[in-house]
């Protein structure tokens, strides 16, 4: 087993030369982790507060509409759209398309920008109500 100690390990952030493809890959994992660890937690709390009745739901909305709650919800909206956009990019790559350097870089840059635009549009609608 001693021979297995120095095998190559998973990529760490600091060994890569930064480029669009690395950025979109890292953002995919960051947004996915955010959705899994924070988003699903908020989902459970939201459903539990509804099941608990009006008072429990009131507690949830008090926190959700406070400044820190809004930061979390806007962050989750961004994470959702970012993970969705880079996930759709993965589907394209999965069928073997989009590996040409220019094409790949263009969509890697477009992916996080589309996610930002969708996040802004979503909150513009919510806040205009």
């Amino acid at each position, binding site marked *: 087993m001693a021979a297995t100690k120095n095998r190559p390990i998973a990529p760490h952030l600091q060994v890569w030369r930064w480029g669009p493809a690395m950025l979109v890959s890292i953002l995919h994992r960051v947004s996915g982790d955010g959705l899994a660890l924070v988003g*699903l937690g908020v989902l459970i709390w939201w459903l539990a507060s509804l099941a608990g009745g009006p008072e429990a739901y009131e507690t949830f909305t008090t926190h959700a509409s406070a400044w820190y709650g809004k930061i979390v919800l806007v962050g989750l909206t961004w994470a959702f759209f970012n993970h969705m956009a880079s996930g759709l990019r993965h589907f394209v790559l999965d069928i073997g398309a989009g590996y040409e350097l220019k094409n790949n870089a263009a969509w890697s840059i477009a992916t996080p920008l589309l996610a930002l635009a969708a996040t802004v549009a979503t909150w513009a*609608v919510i806040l205009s109500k």
Partner: protein
Amino acid sequence: MGNGTSIGRVRALGSAHTGTHHWLVARFTAISNLFLGLWLVFSLVTLPGYTYADVMKWATTPLSATFLALFVVSTFWHARLGLQVVIEDYVHEHANKFAAMAALNLAAFGGAGASLFFIARLVMIAASQETAATAMQAMQSMMGGR
């Protein structure tokens, strides 16, 4: 077949025949997440308001409750698969890896199970309110008829 290195011990044994399963299920749940997630965001954005009554009215319709339950199953499953890969990438010590995997499975199944219970509870609250309203109406019409 060598025995010095990991690759040497598995070389020539062929495929394990299970490697693609994780990858495929991640894609299947990604597809359902895509549609159910867009449905949830669209529904929440187009709700008339976010009071308890507003949200309950929307959430307890048969369609919403079913989609919410499917969303819970799909997202917790996808998150379990995704976080498994993160653990495999960064936790190399065997005991820690086992503990992290055990915790992940407990959290994913526990979270999904609790969420499904809450959704069922929402529908039951709405159903009992409906029954109470119908009974109240029947009583009022009986008293009015006297």
